């Protein structure tokens, strides 16, 4: 047993579970790849690559850039943490687009003919939802800013910077 663990790197049950899983994977994959193997491999591996090496780095970079570019210069007046007022509506609008982009950008050719419905409404709807999200976030920020500065003026001392950064 100790010998096996040294050779393999884990217990025998680990190996058995993986072998059982790969057997099922192989059985299903033969059928998945039966017709257009190259296309399916590209989609399957591409799915992981596009997410892990493109989408995630891009949104991380966007988040970092927003923080770096829009960083407040030191002002006399205090301000509440602002990044989440940008981050949250951007995230919400982004997931809506990520899920519904074929309709939003009217990419689905069979849609109007098959359903008897127009595909042209989705871009406007998504933009309107996005506008409402950012507007609501801006109003929330303005309210917090006003409260904070009022407290600052009334107290004449620095308020605690923490009002929670959650949305």
């Amino acid at each position, binding site marked *: 047993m100790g010998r096996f663990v040294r050779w393999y790197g884990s217990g025998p049950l680990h190996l058995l579970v993986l072998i059982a899983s790969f057997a099922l994977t192989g*059985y*299903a994959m033969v059928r998945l790849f039966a017709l257009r193997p190259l296309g399916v491999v590209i989609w399957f591996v591409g*799915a992981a690559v596009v997410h*892990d090496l493109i989408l995630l780095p891009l949104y991380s970079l966007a988040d970092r850039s927003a*923080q770096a570019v829009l960083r407040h210069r030191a002002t006399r007046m205090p301000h509440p943490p602002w990044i989440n007022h940008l981050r949250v509506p951007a995230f919400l609008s982004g997931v809506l687009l990520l*899920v519904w982009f074929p309709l939003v950008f009217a990419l689905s050719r069979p*849609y109007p003919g098959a359903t008897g419905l127009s595909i042209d409404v989705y871009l406007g709807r998504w933009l309107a*939802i996005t506008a409402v999200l950012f507007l609501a976030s801006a109003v929330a920020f303005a309210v917090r800013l006003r409260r904070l500065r009022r407290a600052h003026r009334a107290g004449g001392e620095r308020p605690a910077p923490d009002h929670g*950064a959650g*949305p």
Partner: protein
Amino acid sequence: MDGDGSPSPAGPAGPGRPDHKGGSRGRPAHGILSGLSSRARYLVRRAEHTPPPPGPFRPGFWRSPLRGPWLTSVFGLVLLIGIPLMFVTGMLSYASYNPDLGRLNDQTPDKGALGFYLFAWPTHPYWLYRLTQGVHVTLGVVLVPVLLAKLWSVIPKLFAWPPARGLAHALERLSLLLLVGGVIFEFVTGILNIQLFYVFPGSFYTLHFYGAWVFIAAFAVHVCLKLGRMVSALRSRSLTAELRTSLAHTRPEPPDPDGLVPAGPAPPTMTRRGVLAMVGGGSLLLLLVTAGQSIGGLLRGTALLAPRGREPGSGPNGFQINKTAASVGVTPARVGPGWRLEIHGAGPAHVFTRAQLLAMPQHTASLPIACVEGWSTPDQLWSGLRLADLAALAGLPDAGSVLVESVQPPGPYASVLLRGNQIRDPRSLLALRVNGADLSLDHGYPARVIVPANPGVNNTKWVHRLTFRR
């Protein structure tokens, strides 16, 4: 049980190592294995002593102070509940087509053992498919933010160094590729399909069904290997305490063996409560702009971004149309005065005009249309002839199946097979009218099938021939 722990204990391992059991060690196969294993260990040791390449492979690269086993486990727990529910509802949807009934219903004739569980799809309760498929699709859409958050939370593991610490670790990472590739493949094909954006390489049914099995095999392994760690991570912090923690008091989780917690965390800009609220808010927003298409009525209008958030018309025939007549090549000429219904069975064929069918005793049934794409309509009041009566007319009251053929040009679902239990349900109709009016052309005029709990495409429109079989 776990290939992700610390590297195998180093030590003078290899063929020459003293062996306590003695005996059978001298066999050549064993010698080769030992040789290979010592070679592998040598490579692993060398990789461990090679500094990681710059960038994401370096421990200091990942700086989010919120990454850690607890946060990952919260998202993991949601997916642990959601994904099995999606798998089960998906497998039910596959069964609902009755693929074992014949080649016509079967998009995956080489399924082999993967169809082991198939059963006669019931007609009770009549809203069964509406529920299971509505849950399958809506849940899939709603889980997208959780899936993104889960993948974000474990991204440092993709760049683990060395890439493999041994055979166990290498196999586990291969399984993780199938897990991540599989889950995204399933979500993407499903989400594109419900928007009729058919860019994936092949038939949706084939890809989504076999892809589900590839994914679930890797998912099961992942649950086996990580369940214990998830439970202990969830116990390591209190959810209610986390939900009360302010930004000023947000600290990274203690260092973990998996390296999710960053070595050099940046100052937090968001609380854990904030992350959970943002991800949960994303799910809630997607639910709000989607679910209405599976509920219908006044709520349909709330499905602002879903494909079926509007009614195509008003009046008795104003409800959702799966495929319009024009889109599948059914012209008014094909269903004009020359249209006849043929009924085949044990004896000679019967042929009826629509007027003759309307003169026969009519029955009604209140049934929804529910599509594999997740949308559905509330109950519509159909009237027409019972399939059971037509089976008796054909001389086969105990028919085992019926072949339903449409006038629509050959293509997917231009003809389907229905099973005996579906024929004999008194609510299963060859409908001629709906909601008090003649069927519209888009809803299958002159006659269409409507069967309780049947997936939408198996309720064939523009029917011109029924062939009952034993």
